[in-house]
């Protein structure tokens, strides 16, 4: 199986996967920080309780898109284990962003949708 086809097999990403990967693309973090960051980034549109969050983290770990690392020098008392993107995770996120970009560009070509853009 070539690397490209492996990456493609993970697409498209669900909204939860996408935002988890996006958040981790900035820096490694633990579950608590992730939950807050995603809520913040989506303006509260995506709220992940501990159940849903770890369920999705588990799946991403199993798929090899993220991995766990021991946090060094972080001594805030909890969450010594952090999540970080794997190379595959980064490649998948890039591919997903590229895919979304293509989609959005396609949408940009539709006049009826420009109104929305102007309004924003």
């Amino acid at each position, binding site marked *: *199986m070539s690397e490209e086809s492996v990456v493609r097999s993970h697409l498209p990403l669900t909204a939860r996967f996408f935002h988890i990967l996006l958040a981790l693309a900035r820096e490694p973090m633990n579950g608590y920080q992730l939950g807050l960051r995603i809520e913040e980034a989506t303006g509260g549109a995506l709220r992940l309780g501990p*159940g849903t969050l*770890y*369920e999705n983290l588990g799946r991403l770990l*199993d798929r090899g898109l993220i991995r766990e690392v021991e946090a060094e020098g972080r001594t805030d008392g909890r969450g010594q284990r952090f999540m970080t993107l794997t190379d595959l995770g980064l490649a998948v996120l890039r591919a997903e962003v590229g895919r979304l970009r293509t989609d959005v560009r396609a949408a940009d070509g539709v006049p009826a949708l420009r109104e929305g853009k102007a309004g924003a």
Partner: protein
Amino acid sequence: MPEREDRPSGLLDRLFRVALVLYPKSFRARFGERMLEDFTARRRRTRDQEGRFAAVAWGLWALVGLLPSAARVRARSLGSWQGDLTGVSASLRRTPTTTALSVAILCVGVGGASLIFSLVYGTLLRPLPYDGAERTVVVWTLNTRQDQIDGSSYLNMADWEARSRTVEQWAFYVRPNFTDRTLTGDGEPARIQVGAVDARFFRLLGVAPLLGRAFTVQEERSRAPVVVLSHALWSDRFGRDPGVLSKTLELDGQPRRIVGVMPPDLQLPSPGTLAWEPHSLLTGWPDDPGGRRTDAFVALAKLLPGTSVEAARSELAAIAADLRAEFPDDNQDLGVLIRPLLDELTGQELPRTLWLLQSAALLVLLAVAANLGHLWLVRGLSRRQELAVRMALGAPRGRLVRLLFAEGAILTVLGTVSGLALAALLRPPLLRMLSPVLPRSMDVGLQPLVLAATSGAALLVGAFASLSSARLATRVSPGLSVSDPARAVAPRVGRRLRVGFVVIQMALAVSLVLGAGVLLKSLRAVEQVDTGMDLANVLVGRVELPRSRYTDPESRGRFPRDVVARLEEMPGVEAAGAVSDFLFHRFPDASVTPEGGALDDAAGRAPIMADFVVPGYFRAVGTPLTRGRALEDADDVEPGAQRPVVVNEAFARTFWPGQDALGRRFQWGTYREDKAWMVIVGISADARRGGLDRPAIPQAFLIRSDTNWDLTVRVAGDPLAAVPLLRQAVHDVDPAVALSWIAPGATLVDRGLRPWRLRSGVGLLAAGLVVTLALLGMYGLLNEGVLSRRFEIGLRLALGASPRAVGAGVLRQAMAYAALGLAAGVTFTAVVSRALSSFLYGVSPLDPATLLSGAVGLLGVAALVSWLPARHATRIDPARCLSAD
């Protein structure tokens, strides 16, 4: 914020902790602690920033959110297996050869093992299908002086019954080897086994007739001509006609009223019994129960519940001791022997053979395990590049192990199911073939326990093979393999284990080949044993003279002589004679004192056999006289006079070693001045009538009268053609005397070869299987070795090594594996040789010739197997394989 408050403490925290139980255990172990910490921290943060109410609302929301998430995780943990299985079936289709080979190997191993285990279970382990069978015993008479088991007299059995307190029910029957009958009437006459039993027999066993009834005590007393059919006879002869009860069955020319039909599982008193009749039709009972020295009967006793066999044994031994005291003349030396019904049915020889087969089947299963382990490991390793890519991309190793394991599981299930199907397919013909030697062929089936045991063993084999191969195959260092595909297919990983697998298979192959070799050699040796007879054209038939009419020695002696004289007049008859017991149903039962010289203790105790014959016997069975003359009618001298006898060579050797025994004299038992002397007038060759694998027993032949005679007829052609002649001759002399059985002499002797044939046949089969497996394994390993060393071999060829040397290297490797296997196999055989030696005749378990030819043969085929990989190695193109790297 004080650290204390960060600890989960509130009601919601506790609820959250409990709710985590909704998740699978593995998930909880992985994330549970962190989820709880996050929950607590987040709730405190909400309380601090948005107030207590918002914190509670958030907590409830998160708590409720656990439900759907836990459901999804659980569903996915099942679903991921489904996903694995789909992927697995695709990957199995990609490698059809390995897939088919694995299934075939398992199929053969499981099929064979389940067949053999079904034999072992059905014969030795499965409870008998009779009421209270576990407390039912068979009681024999034991001759304590000769340590010999014998039938019992009716009078003694009646006394056992009257005096014993440990037995709930008794039933008597005639010893099965005395009770064959000829089925006459419509169709071909056929010899069938008829149980001659008393009316209590069926009730004791708790077997109710399928149709009609069993015969009654009145019918037994009045010798009513009735018969009870077995299910088999009812099916074969009457096509399961429900109206069979109004019909008759003709036995030995006499019509019998059919009163009942028994269910199929009744296999007593002996396997293959096709009908039952009142024993009084065969014995003189009740008018003449016979003396206490007679031995026609066997007793069946169902012990009282809670009574041990030991208790019954000591009670009956005490009764036998009383009877010895009361009837010292007749019951001298007579005790009792009690055997549980199951032991009685299986005998002693068969269990040993079956356990031998079971061991062979286990060895085959072991070889299957080693072979599959090897096959799957190679297959797993050949996919290391793919596995390495997957791991490099972050797939956890556990998941890959699970994937390979799932492949093994699928193959195991496929192989097991097809193996069981194979066993089900082969069972009927196998049972048909074995039913003459299997006492409980009715009970042999693929019972749940048999299925469970063999599939359990198969699953263990599969689990072992797939786990060991999966763990090794996934031991990849991702970086290395991805960057260097050439080395990814050149795994050194597991090499030692794979060599181990192959050596184990070779070792198993060696021990099975050696075992089969010496078993076969034993069979050949037994077949080669000179029977001392020429039986190809000889027919043997037994008559038992009714004691009620043949009361004096004169009439008992005249009957066989008259029959022999009639036979000799008949066309086609070359010779006729009679002997008191053609095959030894008795054991050596006499001792002698030779004249002159001190009686050597050992020689004096040598058991000898006294045979009564009718002149013409030696010519009829083709036993040559080596010295002296044959016996004549005139040799039946008056009691007290010196009596001419013929002895065999074993007799002469035992008592006059190195001397001429002709003209020598001896007395029966211990010497007494007034006892009659026997004088040796002829010496005959040794005849192995007591079993081919047993040494010839010293025998003395004399002209005397007896009630049991085996008539022997030599004819020009097919001995079976003489059946009507023999029948006619007996009928002419006394129409009331029946032949109790007739058989070609060669068949009687051949019967003794059956267990030898069975053992060597199964041994050869198992050896063939395991050798094939081992060679396949060896081939795979060598081939893989050449592939993995392509680069090195290419380099050596480029540097000027000759292809011949490269090929020789492969061959050397093959020889090394084979030699290791040989050493291990011989060691293993040496360890189990004691168990094996009891199955051998004239050959030792580590027979040097077998060892040598086995070793040469295995090394030879190993060399042959290495030929393809060696040729492959010599044809490696250095330029291509070096540039590829």
